[in-house]
């Protein structure tokens, strides 16, 4: 009868787009591994993990932001600002290094909060707001640093960016923890559910009593915080602080998130997808380089994969819908 309790067929563990990505990733891995015997080694893979940590960390809150139908273009500039303030406060304010790190994370948080505040309170569209702060935050980084870089951190500072813990690059642990936390939040918590609801229908979410503005404020703030964290790791990895750090990283991050199947219109997306997107981009870049493809050609391949993967998913989806 009407009130059926028969459950819909169990959900697949992965969404269709993620299956497409896994297949592409598997093919790419297989091909690249046969072409270069140095590609599929633990050493290389761990090293690639180290290199993608910053993009990965920022991609986590970016997935949240895009799931709600927003966007944050200012992350690269926020990263530059945090990096500068980390070094500047340590050197010029005489902050102990620990305090300088906390200060940098705080600055990132505030930078994200400012984005979120304008977006929720004054209803500035996210794209416009973050395009403005993209210029503003980078400008502040340049102005504060007066183009001077800060170097010569104590040896211990480099553990995060260049060291290893139990044989795995230190920052990779952080990334893994972040992935788990963000994935659990998105998939399992009321907060995550609220993000999807906002992305699909913000008014409906508001009328259901969800604290829409507070949630949006929180994710833009988180975006700033993670940009600050990425700045810390980046400074530690490259041992210096410059105002142009993180330039253009927003496009790398968005490419990974979008490749991971998160819809730019909101409501759709998973952390698993984003992680697959990150891996695919990073391993393609690395693998192609190892098989002798130059950097410029690699960019072309990644652009094509981005379009193709979404294309395949669209086709698959349409086929399935027609088959119904």
């Amino acid at each position: 009868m009407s009130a059926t309790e028969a459950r819909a067929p169990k959900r697949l563990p992965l969404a269709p787009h993620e299956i497409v990505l896994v297949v592409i990733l598997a093919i790419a891995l297989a091909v690249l591994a046969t072409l270069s015997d140095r590609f599929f080694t633990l050493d290389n893979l761990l090293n690639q993990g180290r290199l993608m940590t910053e993009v990965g960390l920022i991609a986590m809150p970016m997935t949240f932001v895009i799931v709600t139908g927003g966007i944050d273009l200012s992350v690269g500039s926020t990263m530059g600002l945090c990096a500068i303030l980390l070094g500047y406060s340590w050197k010029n304010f005489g902050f102990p290094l620990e305090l300088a790190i906390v200060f940098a994370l705080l600055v990132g948080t505030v930078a994200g909060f400012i984005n979120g505040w304008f977006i929720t309170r004054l209803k500035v569209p996210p794209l416009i707001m973050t395009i403005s702060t993209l210029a503003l935050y980078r400008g502040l980084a340049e102005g504060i640093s007066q183009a001077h870089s800060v170097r010569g951190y104590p040896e211990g500072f480099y553990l995060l960016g260049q060291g290893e813990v139990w044989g795995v690059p230190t920052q990779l642990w952080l990334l893994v923890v972040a992935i788990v936390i963000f994935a659990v939040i998105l998939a399992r918590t009321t907060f995550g559910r609220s993000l999807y609801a906002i992305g699909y229908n913000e008014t409906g979410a508001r009328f259901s009593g969800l604290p829409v503005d507070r949630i949006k404020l929180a994710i833009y703030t988180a975006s700033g915080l993670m940009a600050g964290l990425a700045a810390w790791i980046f400074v530690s990895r490259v041992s210096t602080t410059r105002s142009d750090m993180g330039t253009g990283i927003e496009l790398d991050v968005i490419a990974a998130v979008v490749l991971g199947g998160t819809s730019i219109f909101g409501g759709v997306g998973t952390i698993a997808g984003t992680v697959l997107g990150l891996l695919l981009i990073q391993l393609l870049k690395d693998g192609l380089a190892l098989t002798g493809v130059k950097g410029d050609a690699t960019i072309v391949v990644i652009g094509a994969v981005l379009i193709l993967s979404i294309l395949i998913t669209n086709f698959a989806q349409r086929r399935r819908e027609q088959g119904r």
Partner: protein
Amino acid sequence: MSATIAQAPARKWRFSLSQEWLLLIGIATLFIVVGLINPRFVASRNLQSILLANAYVAVAAIGMSVVIVSGNIDISVGSLIGVLASISGALAVAGVPVFFAWAIPVVISILVMMLQGALVAYLRIPSIVVTLGMLSILKGGLISVTNGVWISGMPDSFHLAQWHLLDLFIAAEPGKQAAVPESLSALKPMFDLLTMPVLFMLFLTLGAAWWMRNTAKGRSVYAVGGNAEAARLCGIPRERTLMMVFAVHGLFTGLAAVLFATQPSVIQSTVPPNLELTIITASVVGGVSILGGTGTVIGSTLAAILIAAIGSALIFVNISPYWLRAAQGILILVTVLADIYRRRQRGLAR
């Protein structure tokens, strides 16, 4: 209800006007204030520099505005301009007649944009994904093909951007400053301002504004951007309209690329950094709603001029160069907030 009706007439008119008035007032204020601080800022030579160097941004922003009104976005535009400029230069150096060195890139631009349009319209991939992918492809492809070798040695006549209005009538030799007849010498500063890129900017802006407002095709862009389903039922198919939108965008991008390429005597075969952001910022500050359905190209051109003038003005008022970018960021933010405040006042906030 009666209250709404009473103030209804001319609302649309006032609305579209003030969008542009805000920018115009902004530009005027900027020129007056900075002109008072440093009179050289308003000298015709500097006005010419500002207009000349940014006309191509304004032309590209026209196409971008059309795309955004239709509810899409294009972030590949900067890379495409870089690619087209190299093609244009390479053709000119290879001895292709100058006209074709200008025209072929425009045709290629239209084709590339239509390809992207097809992916967006027929295969339903979000435009941001298509153009993000295309950005990568063009950027990498350009360097792969050219190896980054600079292009120079184009014939003099190739430099369309250096032509002046008077060259068309008086001087046979383009690129050289024309000798102005006595009778017109009083008008010389004005003629100096009217270099080809500036003329293109003016005519293309007015032409596009007219097209967007007064033709069925132009209105169909608003229709599709405002409500694609309703448009379909009015006999305006989303797919074909989007193809047209991208073709038009391709035309303007191509023209912008030609203006860009024919300016310097050396063409760098790399993609101009952040050009797409500059162009999108001009469109958005010009009042085109990122949600589609509203906006005019006059606004985007004025915004392009305002942004360029801000960049120049900050140097003239001796802002420390280290703080220049921050000041620019604040001014853009202020412009955006002023616009939002104004909309609020009029109850037009979404």
